[in-house]
């Protein structure tokens, strides 16, 4: 039985970690780009960002004052039991969001879309979002905090099968160029692409691809993995770098997630996880043990299952779809 007090404490800690500590994989990506960036101004921006990440950690302050919209991704082991059930878990996450907003401090960004009502704690109607997934045979809970920034850099389009890979490339270029000018997307970014699914699924997959996979991680489908690399290089060949200055630092990595879609369509979404790519994960074990990490490990084989049944191979413990 996992106690709700533990969950709330862990969630508060995750809020601070996400806001303050840039994940290592993203940091390594920016460092790599700072080495190779030929554009003078773009390279200057990357160096300033590297300094900024250090300052954030040293001072224990948020890396960017636009602390984005805090949200939660919960992976529940099938055998995990929470004291008070899922309702208590949601209450713990909402409480942690509110208290951490005040303590760190974060900017209270969340307001009502029409009345601009601000509770000053990033909690309100449908906020923070809590997304769920499940994991067979596990008795732990993974909590991931993401503080997604960016009013800019995300778009959706219904493409059609006839548009093919050309259509995907065009729409990616359109999105990156449009929002890359003046650096509105705060690139270089982890670009997440959702392909297929229903419209809403398409958006969700792209968002999760951007926020929940680490730099260097590849899709298990080798052809999608190849497309990820191709699209990353395409984005970096635009001639645009950080803040829209001349350069090549646009896409730190590109992640694609696909979902079966209507036979007549090929919806596509693009999401940019910005220079403040804020995520932090903790695994809360059944015995109360806690392990913090920066890789959400969200897209498990179970998440990407393709067929009707899901079987566990009793001999190896490995899973097959």
């Amino acid at each position, binding site marked *: 039985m996992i106690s709700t007090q533990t969950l709330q404490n862990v969630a508060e800690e995750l809020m601070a970690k996400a806001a303050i500590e840039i994940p290592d994989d993203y940091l390594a990506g920016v460092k790599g780009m700072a*080495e190779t960036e030929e554009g*003078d*101004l773009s390279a*200057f*921006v990357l*160096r*300033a*960002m590297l*300094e*900024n*990440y250090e*300052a*954030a950690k040293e*001072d224990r*302050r*948020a*890396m*960017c*004052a*636009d*602390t984005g919209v805090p949200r939660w991704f919960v992976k529940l082991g099938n055998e995990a039991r929470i004291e008070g059930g899922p309702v208590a878990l949601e209450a713990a996450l909402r409480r942690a969001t509110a208290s951490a*907003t*005040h*303590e*760190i*401090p*974060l*900017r*209270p*960004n969340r307001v009502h879309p029409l009345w601009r009502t*601000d509770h*000053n704690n990033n909690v309100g109607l449908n906020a923070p979002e809590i997304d769920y997934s499940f994991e067979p045979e596990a008795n732990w809970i993974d909590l991931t905090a993401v503080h997604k*920034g960016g*009013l*800019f850099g995300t778009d959706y*389009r219904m493409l*059609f099968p006839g*548009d093919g890979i*050309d259509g995907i490339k*065009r*729409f990616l*270029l*359109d999105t990156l*160029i449009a*929002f890359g*000018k*003046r*650096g*509105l997307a*705060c690139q270089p970014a982890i670009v997440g692409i959702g392909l297929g699914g229903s419209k809403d699924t398409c958006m969700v997959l792209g968002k999760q691809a951007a926020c929940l996979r680490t730099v260097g991680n590849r899709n298990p489908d080798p052809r999608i993995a190849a497309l990820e690399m191709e699209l990353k290089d395409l984005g970096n*060949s*635009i*001639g645009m770098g950080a*803040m*829209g*200055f*001349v350069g090549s630092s646009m896409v730190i990595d590109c992640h694609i997630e696909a979902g079966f879609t209507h036979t007549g369509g090929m919806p596509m979404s693009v999401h940019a996880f*910005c*220079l*403040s790519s804020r995520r932090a994960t903790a695994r809360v074990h059944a015995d109360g043990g806690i392990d913090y990490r920066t890789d959400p490990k969200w897209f498990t084989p179970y998440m990407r299952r393709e067929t009707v049944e899901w079987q566990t191979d009793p001999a190896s413990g490995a899973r097959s779809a």
Partner: protein
Amino acid sequence: MADRSSKRRTLRLKTPISAEDIADFRLGDVVYLDGLIYTGREGVYKRVVDEGAELPVDPAQVGNVNFHCSPAAAVREDGSYNVGAVTATASFRFAKWLDRWFEISGCKVIIGKGGMTSEAYRKHLVPQGAVYLTTVGYGTGALLGRGIKRVVAAHWLEDLGIAQAMWVFEVENFGPFLVESDLQGNSLFERANAEVAKNLDALYEGLKPPVMSRYGETDDRKDELI
């Protein structure tokens, strides 16, 4: 990592920034500030420009630098302020208030995110002898937060909230910023856009257009969104 910054000047200036210093700015200069600056964005502009409210402080006393920003801040129980990170917000949305704002406040330097169009600079900033500095990144919130030495005041905090209040900060080595507009109304971003645009036709070459277009869609990729 080669140091390619030698071409760029780095300036450290005290606020209020003098007319001579402003005239000397070149696009792409790196600027750090010391002294007093204040925040003000749509909440303050609406109040002062649209509703005619008196400024809560004598503008001559708080420097001539208007930061388009909302800090990640909280008010402690004892009434003191905990300012964490500070980052600018996108400025292009505020152009419509600026003429009157400059007249009322005597502001000469705007710091924000993303700049405005050169058209807006010529219309609103150049006639006032004002220029625009952009934050860098734009996520340098921790560096900027470090540069804030003291919260002098947080005006209209009750009514406008943390994000929209008029904060007055005493700053030290506050930056970096880049000079984005000069007294001729040129824009560093537009210069970059023009460079990038040269490559765009080649980039799209051979990619067939989508089978279904979007209503109102532009095909001119040299356009900007703002």
